[in-house]
């Protein structure tokens, strides 16, 4: 009798453990509670609304967003009428261009970044030299290899073609367009574009449906997911619903042969602090205590060769990869992380993973489930 009771208890104990382990998004896979929590944190359902940008009073104004959408596609905001934001951030291609280096009036030093969910990020550009979406948006407009025009030219375009819509959001245009007045209009041009970009959300993917309880991932994809959050350490940096922590890491990606050795984040920080359009500047609507510069790491060897991990949502469909498009295919990327070569600039945070062919194929399959 006692032996039977003990056996029943042991079976009951085992059943409790099995229930704890087997309650996963899919009946076919077994996840621990911590793993389930981690999976939920990666899901689009965990994505909060973008935080308000204190440096942009207009970022949640739908009229500003509607105006920004028109600015985004208007080629008059370029030196010769040939380039708009959407020339490189192509809406039909996930707001990127598929090229190793962006090409506009000239060729840039960087791969075009996609924009879905971008308003969630504190630091913009691959090296984080901008602290707001509006400040990011104005830089290419005056870059001689991108839009190539001037703030005075753009203020005149707005006065001539957008006066009514602009004044409805930002108030009267200045009567005299001196450099300071033009700079104010130029900043507002960026703030309208930022309000539009704030509305761009990532699309729901099979991964999100899986986490919500649908049995839509195959065995190979699930094996890849398990590696992604485990032995492959991808989730260390590619975390949260956007699959990026938005911070800066040196992963030893070799410099691009066409761009050369990469500039350092220390230089990006110098630019950020000297930027007239930063959160602390006269065109910002924020109090200094609201600015991320307050806690900014300004120097140190740890900044060398560090770049922002991009979102992995949709990444499988947008080769080439890395900040200067150095790696042509997803296989090349996985191989890089598996080998973990020494960094040319600074020190890589990577360690060799020792994954086999089957593991890499599984990771690739999982990454494909992150596209709509």
């Amino acid at each position, binding site marked *: 009798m*006692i*032996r039977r*009771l*003990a*056996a029943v*208890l*042991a079976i*009951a*104990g*085992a059943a*409790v*453990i099995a229930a*704890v*382990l087997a309650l996963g998004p899919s009946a076919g896979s077994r996840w*621990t*509670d*911590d793993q389930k*929590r*981690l999976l939920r944190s990666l899901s689009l359902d965990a994505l909060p609304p973008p935080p308000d940008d204190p440096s942009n009073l207009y970022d949640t104004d739908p009229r500003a967003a509607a105006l920004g959408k028109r600015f985004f596609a208007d080629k008059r905001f370029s030196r010769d009428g040939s380039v708009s934001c959407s020339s490189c951030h192509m809406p039909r291609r996930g707001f990127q261009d598929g090229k190793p280096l962006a090409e506009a009036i000239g060729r840039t030093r960087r791969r075009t970044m996609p924009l879905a969910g971008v308003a969630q990020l504190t630091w913009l550009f691959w090296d984080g030299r901008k602290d707001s979406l509006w400040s990011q948006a104005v830089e290419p407009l005056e870059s001689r290899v991108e839009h190539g025009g001037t703030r005075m030219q753009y203020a005149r375009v707005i006065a001539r073609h957008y006066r009514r819509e602009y004044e409805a959001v930002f108030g009267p245009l200045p009567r005299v367009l001196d450099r300071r007045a033009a700079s104010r209009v130029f900043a507002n041009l960026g703030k309208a574009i930022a309000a539009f970009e704030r509305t761009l959300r990532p699309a729901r993917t099979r991964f999100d449906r899986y986490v919500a309880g649908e049995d839509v991932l195959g065995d190979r994809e699930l094996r890849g997911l398990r590696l992604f959050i485990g032995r492959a350490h991808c*989730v*260390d*940096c590619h*975390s*949260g619903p956007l699959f990026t*922590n*938005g*911070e*800066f*890491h*040196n992963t030893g990606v070799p410099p691009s042969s066409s761009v050369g050795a990469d500039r350092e984040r220390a230089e990006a920080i110098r630019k950020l602090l000297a930027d007239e359009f930063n959160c602390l500047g006269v065109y910002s609507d924020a109090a200094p205590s609201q600015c991320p510069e*307050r*806690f*900014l*790491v*300004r120097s*140190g060897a*740890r900044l060398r060769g*560090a770049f922002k991990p991009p979102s992995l949502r949709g990444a499988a469909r947008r080769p080439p990869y890395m900040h200067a498009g150095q790696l042509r295919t997803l296989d090349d990327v996985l191989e890089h992380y598996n080998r973990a070569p020494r960094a040319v600039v600074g*020190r890589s*945070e990577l*360690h060799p993973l020792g994954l086999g062919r089957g593991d890499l194929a599984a990771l690739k399959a999982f990454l494909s489930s992150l596209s709509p």
Partner: protein
Amino acid sequence: VTRLRVGLVVAVFVVLAGRGGRLRQARRVGAEGVPSAQGLYRVAFETDPAGSPVNRLHTWAFALRDRDGDRVGGAQVSVDGDMPAHGHGLPTRPLVRDVGDGAYVIEGMKFQMGGRWFVELRIDGPDGSDRARVDFELVG
């Protein structure tokens, strides 16, 4: 009856062992006070370092005591941290504010990933300069 007891103990042990990770996380780190390297101070964390959110700005609070257990106000404290396995350090430069009566807050704390971390406080107070370090694991 003995076998029943043994069975119960084994069942409870097996269930707890299966959830050991949770139990380890639940234990507070540094609540009883972390002694500084030379023993000049003790830092009692009111915020559990191991319960910190990942990838979100947040604030820590701690009380500073001297070797007699008395609270120490007016100390200059700076903060740094690192992940030994990665070597990238904290993504922010946190700021320490003295809120009176030996109580301090650390604003701008952020950990950009889960894993093993340490945070070190450099304390410059009336009893001299010293460092206090707390090690902990964050679940990403």
